[in-house]
């Protein structure tokens, strides 16, 4: 079950729930090894070889290919304005922006916003459920894994890939570029985190949860009700009280 109760408030997970931890740690280790052999060297190469305009174009392309899903999910979340904005971005960037390689929509004042089906579920109050480290993809949870599956099915590009060789090439190409760009974008930070952390797995797990909370709130500050409740077992008030004893 994804959650015990659904409410109208967007879901905010306040503590890690990881009943599959032993398995997750193994997958995390295997992902790390695969990354070290394949994606990490590719990203290092890309970082050092590709000129900045190429990187900017790739980043735009990767965002643009996601816009139909952003629009679809904004609509499902009852936000037609955002759905229209994402759709507008897609049309503008795919045409004037030359297949999405240029983000002209941002210059026109329509900023990018990512919306996926995991966020849509959370919007209707569904919590993350158990943490899951997916093979190759990495940190996720039951809700967001469901979201990935739904987004896969809902993605027009995956329907197209079944019927057209061009769409299939575009699909695989975009997947490869997304992986490369994403790894490149996180390379310094993850290196730093891996070096500084004592338990890299646990640090990533916490950051994933908080990052999803932020995306679900669309970047808005946490409401006062959620602020005092970071953890069911121990929050700042508890710490202050403990220190004053």
């Amino acid at each position, binding site marked *: 079950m994804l959650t015990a109760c659904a409410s109208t408030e967007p879901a905010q997970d306040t503590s890690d729930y990881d009943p599959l931890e032993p398995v997750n740690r193994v997958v995390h280790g295997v992902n790390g090894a695969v990354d070290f052999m394949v994606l990490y060297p590719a990203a290092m190469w890309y970082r050092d070889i590709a000129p900045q305009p190429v990187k900017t174009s790739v980043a735009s392309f990767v965002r643009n290919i996601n816009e139909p899903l952003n629009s679809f999910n904004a609509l499902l979340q009852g936000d037609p304005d955002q759905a229209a904005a994402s759709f507008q971005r897609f049309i503008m960037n795919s045409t004037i922006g030359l297949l999405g390689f240029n983000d002209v929509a941002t210059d026109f004042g329509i900023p990018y916003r990512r919306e996926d089906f995991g966020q849509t579920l959370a919007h209707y109050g569904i919590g993350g459920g158990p943490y899951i480290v997916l093979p190759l993809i990495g940190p996720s949870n039951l809700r967001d894994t469901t979201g990935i599956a739904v987004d896969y099915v809902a993605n027009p590009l995956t329907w197209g890939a079944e019927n057209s060789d061009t769409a299939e090439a575009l699909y695989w190409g975009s997947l490869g570029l997304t992986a490369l760009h994403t790894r490149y974008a996180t390379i310094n930070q993850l290196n730093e985190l891996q070096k500084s952390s004592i338990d890299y797995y646990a640090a990533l797990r916490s950051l994933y949860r908080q990052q999803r909370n932020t995306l679900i709130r669309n970047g808005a500050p946490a409401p006062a009700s959620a602020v005092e409740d970071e953890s069911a077992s121990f929050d700042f008030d*508890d710490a202050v009280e403990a220190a004053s004893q």
Partner: protein
Amino acid sequence: MANNKIAIPAAAMIAIAAAWSGHASATSLSSDVVAEVAVETSAADVIKTMADQAMVELTDHTLADDVRREKFVSLMDRYFEMDVVSRFVLGRYWRTISNQEIEEFSVLLQNYLALNYANQFKEFNGEQFVVGDETQKNKDTFVDSQFVRPDGPPINIVWRMRMFDDSYKIIDVSIEGLSMGITQRDEFTSVIQQNNDDVGALTAALKAKTGL
């Protein structure tokens, strides 16, 4: 694809050090708000003062790394309520150790953070630190700020502050919605849990990292 969900948090980890420096001159908080709080120094003023001080003390390129770390630690001493932060990052395990041990842990924690972040100040070049509004939520005052970079979007940093003996002290820092305190607590309590609830395993790991 899901990997980019951790991109911003990871970036934030790096940005924290940078956030503590910068030129705190850009905007000032509305003085009306300050007056309402009815305290000599507003929470936002404390952040500005700290940022100015960090800028002066930590960005000097000629500084030796260990001296920079020492200065970083003394800044934390002055502006953070370390007793609360230390207990928070230990979660419920603070109960399993003595007050003496908590004090020792606090020193280790500060040195660990200095090790991870102090060196970021070396690479300062053209960034600006802008302090914005304060918001009161329950018992805490949240001070918004931005770290403005010449090459990239600004990074939003929120300082969580609470009043202790008539002055505001920092108890948490959030960068792009990611709380450093919560991240550290989740990591540290995991380390303790993995070692049969023994806080000693965590302090040993911190000692190994910091060389203390």
